[in-house]
């Protein structure tokens, strides 16, 4: 059933072509802006944060590709949940014999699948044509292992990002207007997730803070796995961190959900 939900969600997102291409365009343009900024920066400080120039440029384009997929700037499919909470439609959802958290994860996975084929691939292809991007290197086996690890890291990143956004959307049961908290979430996750700049560039104190927060599991970790920043053990450790956050945050979401459901009633009338 959840697979069917995922497929429907993929189709739902594919109905908005114009919005998709507007996003692809925006992400690509920002890719260029950031790339030139990075080039200027790395020119002055080569190997900043432990990345050489080509790794840094690749980092930019991974970021532009994953921005929509991981729904950093918005709530992704959970924008729908948020609307349903705000207008009370969520009450009808609760009548059905489905688990809400799993249901929306399936919806969000469908959305991410669609974004992968459009918003992720197109900007990265454009970036790849304009600049030299670094793909996983080494002997065939090692490169293949890196691709596989990246795939796993990406799935885990999506789950962590989903779990975070689920929590943000659920606050709608208490706040109703989420614009404020969404903006805070956007800035925090971009900053501490390493979307603006890798967290290794931060002053040590800030980097420590970033490493203690879950946002890093959303972007910096999959990007570093792709750039082969870790050795085999380090990669497994990084994936483990992602998995840990996924479990903790999904559990927290479940807890908040059970409290939130009680809240529906008071408002539903």
């Amino acid at each position: 059933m959840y697979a069917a939900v995922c497929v429907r969600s993929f189709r739902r997102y594919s109905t908005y072509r114009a919005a998709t291409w507007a996003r692809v365009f925006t992400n690509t343009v920002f890719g260029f802006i950031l790339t030139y900024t990075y080039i200027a920066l790395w020119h002055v400080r080569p190997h900043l944060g432990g990345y050489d120039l080509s790794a840094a440029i690749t980092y930019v384009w991974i970021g532009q590709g994953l921005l929509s997929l991981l729904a950093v700037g918005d709530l992704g499919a959970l924008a729908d949940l948020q609307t349903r909470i705000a207008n009370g439609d969520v009450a009808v959802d609760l009548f059905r014999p489905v688990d809400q958290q799993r249901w929306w994860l399936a919806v969000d996975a469908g959305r991410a699948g669609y974004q992968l084929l459009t918003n992720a691939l197109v900007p990265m292809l454009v970036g790849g044509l304009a600049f030299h991007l670094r793909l996983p290197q080494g002997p065939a086996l090692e490169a293949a292992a890196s691709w596989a690890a990246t795939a796993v890291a990406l799935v885990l990143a999506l789950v962590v990002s989903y779990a975070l956004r689920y929590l943000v959307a659920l606050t709608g049961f208490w706040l109703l207007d989420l614009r404020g908290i969404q903006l805070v979430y956007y800035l925090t996750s971009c900053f501490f997730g390493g979307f603006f700049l890798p967290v290794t560039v931060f002053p040590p104190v800030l980097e420590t803070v970033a490493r203690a927060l879950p946002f890093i599991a959303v972007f910096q970790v999959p990007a570093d796995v792709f750039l082969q920043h870790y050795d085999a053990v380090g990669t497994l450790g990084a994936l483990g961190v992602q998995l840990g956050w996924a479990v903790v945050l999904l559990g927290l979401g479940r807890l908040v959900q059970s409290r939130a459901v009680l809240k529906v009633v008071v408002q539903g009338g």
Partner: protein
Amino acid sequence: MDEVLIEVEGVTKSFVVRRRAGRLRRTREVVNAVAGLDFTVRRGEMVGYIGPNGAGKSTTVKMLTGILLPSTGRLRVAGADPVRDRVRLAQRMGVVFGQRTTLWWDLPLRDSYELARRIYRIPEATYAGNLDRCVELLELGPLLDVPVRQLSLGQRMRGDIAAALLHEPEVLYLDEPTIGLDVVSKRRVREFLARINAEQGTTVLLTTHDLTDIEQLCSRVMVIDHGRVVYDGGLDGLHRQGRSERTLVVELERELPPIELPGTRLVRCEGTRQWLAFPASASAAPLVAELAGRYELRDLSVREPEIEDVIARMYGEAEQVDAAVAQVG
């Protein structure tokens, strides 16, 4: 047919609401949404469940569907506790909220049905049969491949009703299924509901503000107000107890002094138009004949009583009873 399906015994539900009182202070207030409900519904019954806004109707439905735990009291649907057996019972009930939709906004109606088939694990043959039936009776054929966002309210409502019935629920909870619909759509929905009730024995609990819904569909009405059942019985009894009145709207050829007609009382008089109220239980025919004989009429129509008025009058009585009980206690 005599089996009790829904049992509600002494059920109450109270919420704590925090209110702002002054700049920083907040007061806690206990709101009794439902204050001691008792009723039973038998299998195959079609019951109208009415009451003013905030009377506790939705709270009742939420408790019956298990998403809300009663504060006290006992509640059983098909012998099971709705909260504990929520997922299992969900397979056996359908819910339609007139102002809410379960359909996928951007996708064709068919996709939402296909998902319902998987959510409720409906066997292929059953699903095909039920879908055909709904499509035929609710005239959904041309709409199946239209994205839901392009449907009119009436079409969407029919789509939602079909979605709630594909898994053949034993109980159907309907909340304002005809709200905002045009006359044709209303009739279609009512005919359909009457039919599934008669043919499949689906038990229906219908919440509405439209008295015609009740008149045409329900042999039994429960009126709830301030979280309590204040009336349970036939519709005629409701009119009697609520002393409800129908209104004759008389349009005269020319302006005349107020009409005096035995059995009616003048409510309003505006130019050539006059409004005469008479008991809802009385027949309008002799009054119309009398008026037509006495005056030159341009037009005449009969207005049905508003359910709110009937209930307001009844509620007035309930409050007096409450006051009396309070004094005695």
